[in-house]
């Protein structure tokens, strides 16, 4: 089996442009997903059922349906109602919503692992709920959150590859273009896999370094009661 390097010369620039788009999609979608996820997580922890149930339903529905089907629904299903989204917009939207649901579970799990007493003490001292969350719980939960978050971010990057099916111009779509002109699946897919692998490797390494720096001085307080994290909090978009 010989490797045709001319395909690399021809295809790599096209693929790199697609890679840039993939990164752009994620850079926009992931913070949006985080924002959505935080809101949903807090809603799920609310005492009022009217807040909890819709949030729980949202998370369950998103997590129990494939990303591809959600993308189809958003891209092809909305136009009859007059909502016409471009492939890129639809792609970013579905990526945000999808990862938002998974972020919500990771955040909820992280919040739950902070001992309840902390928040209770804050409230006993008169601190409003949200400020207590922000100043007391949030800093402590970050340590639990970052590993789960890393997993989700990587999951989102992998999900973005699926967006090629709704014509979004990211890396996998670029691969189709290169394939269409070169008829060389071996070289094309070899390049594409290396590019994704490198991207995810870089992101994962970067996040791990961030984790180490943020929690360099963290003291691990041994607990008498090891929290049984719900498994659902650890589940990722392992695709």
């Amino acid at each position, binding site marked *: 089996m010989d490797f045709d390097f001319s395909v690399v010369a021809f295809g790599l620039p096209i693929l790199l442009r697609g890679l840039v788009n993939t990164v752009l999609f994620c850079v926009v979608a992931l913070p949006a997903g985080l924002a959505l996820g935080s809101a949903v997580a807090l809603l799920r922890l609310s005492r009022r059922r009217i807040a909890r149930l819709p949030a729980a339903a949202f998370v369950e529905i998103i997590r129990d349906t494939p990303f591809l*089907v959600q993308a189809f629904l958003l891209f092809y299903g909305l136009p009859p109602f007059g909502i016409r989204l471009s492939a890129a917009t639809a792609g970013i939207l579905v990526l945000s919503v999808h990862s938002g649901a998974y972020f919500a579970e990771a955040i909820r799990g992280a919040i739950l692992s902070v001992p309840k007493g902390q928040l209770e003490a804050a409230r006993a001292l008169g601190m409003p709920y949200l400020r207590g969350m922000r100043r007391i719980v949030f800093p402590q939960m970050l340590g639990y959150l970052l590993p789960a978050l890393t997993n989700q971010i*990587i999951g989102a990057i992998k999900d973005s*590859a699926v967006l090629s099916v709704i014509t979004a111009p990211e890396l*996998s779509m670029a691969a189709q273009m290169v394939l269409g002109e070169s008829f060389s699946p071996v070289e094309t*897919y070899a390049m594409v896999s290396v590019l*994704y*692998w490198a991207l995810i490797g870089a992101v994962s390494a970067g996040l791990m370094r961030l984790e180490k720096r943020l929690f360099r001085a963290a003291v691990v307080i041994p607990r008498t009661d090891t929290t049984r994290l719900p498994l659902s909090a650890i589940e990722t978009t*392992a695709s």
Partner: protein
Amino acid sequence: MPNSITVMLHAAPWLLRGAVVTLETSLLAIALGLPVGIGLAIAMRSRLRVVRAFVRVYISFARGTPLIIQIMLVFFVLPSLGLDLPRFAAGVLALSLNSGAYIAEMIRGGLTAIPKGQIEAARALSMRPALMWRHIILPQVLALILPPLTVEFTALLKGSALLAVIGIVELTRTGQQMVATTYKPLEIWLTVGIFYFVMCYALAALTRYLERTTQVYRTV
């Protein structure tokens, strides 16, 4: 509105057929993924650095590239390397190779829960590693990872949707065919979503039940 319901009801039997194929592929994938995962987990502890490095690279690749690309690789690239499989087998293989990597990580985590004393006792009795794995380690680990395995199965059910891109007529591809003939994407994709939701929600309920009944201390 009533027209929409008619469309959904008419599509349901075809989609059901697709859902059966989805279940088939996912079951086969996890059945094959388990030995792959077990093999990788055992290889991870090999004395040979080459073997350990291979496992690390394999798991890094399987977890660090999109599943849709892996499916394309198995279907389009493997034949040039000598392994030409028909669509269904290629799809199942791609899913199982992917699953195997995640299962290997689960097993690795589960191994830490096996009390060291058991291994020491086995060694003291001169038990061959193979026997040790078969009779002591694996039974306990497999029981431990049952909940994450159902989570992995749910992921496979959703991942199988991607098999549509290589033409396997499972639930999503059937949905595409229905949209092409009816021009009613909203109704069809909602119905497809409902099918997936029912399957995955049932599985999620099973996961919660298993978590409750196995009641294991989780450090991972």
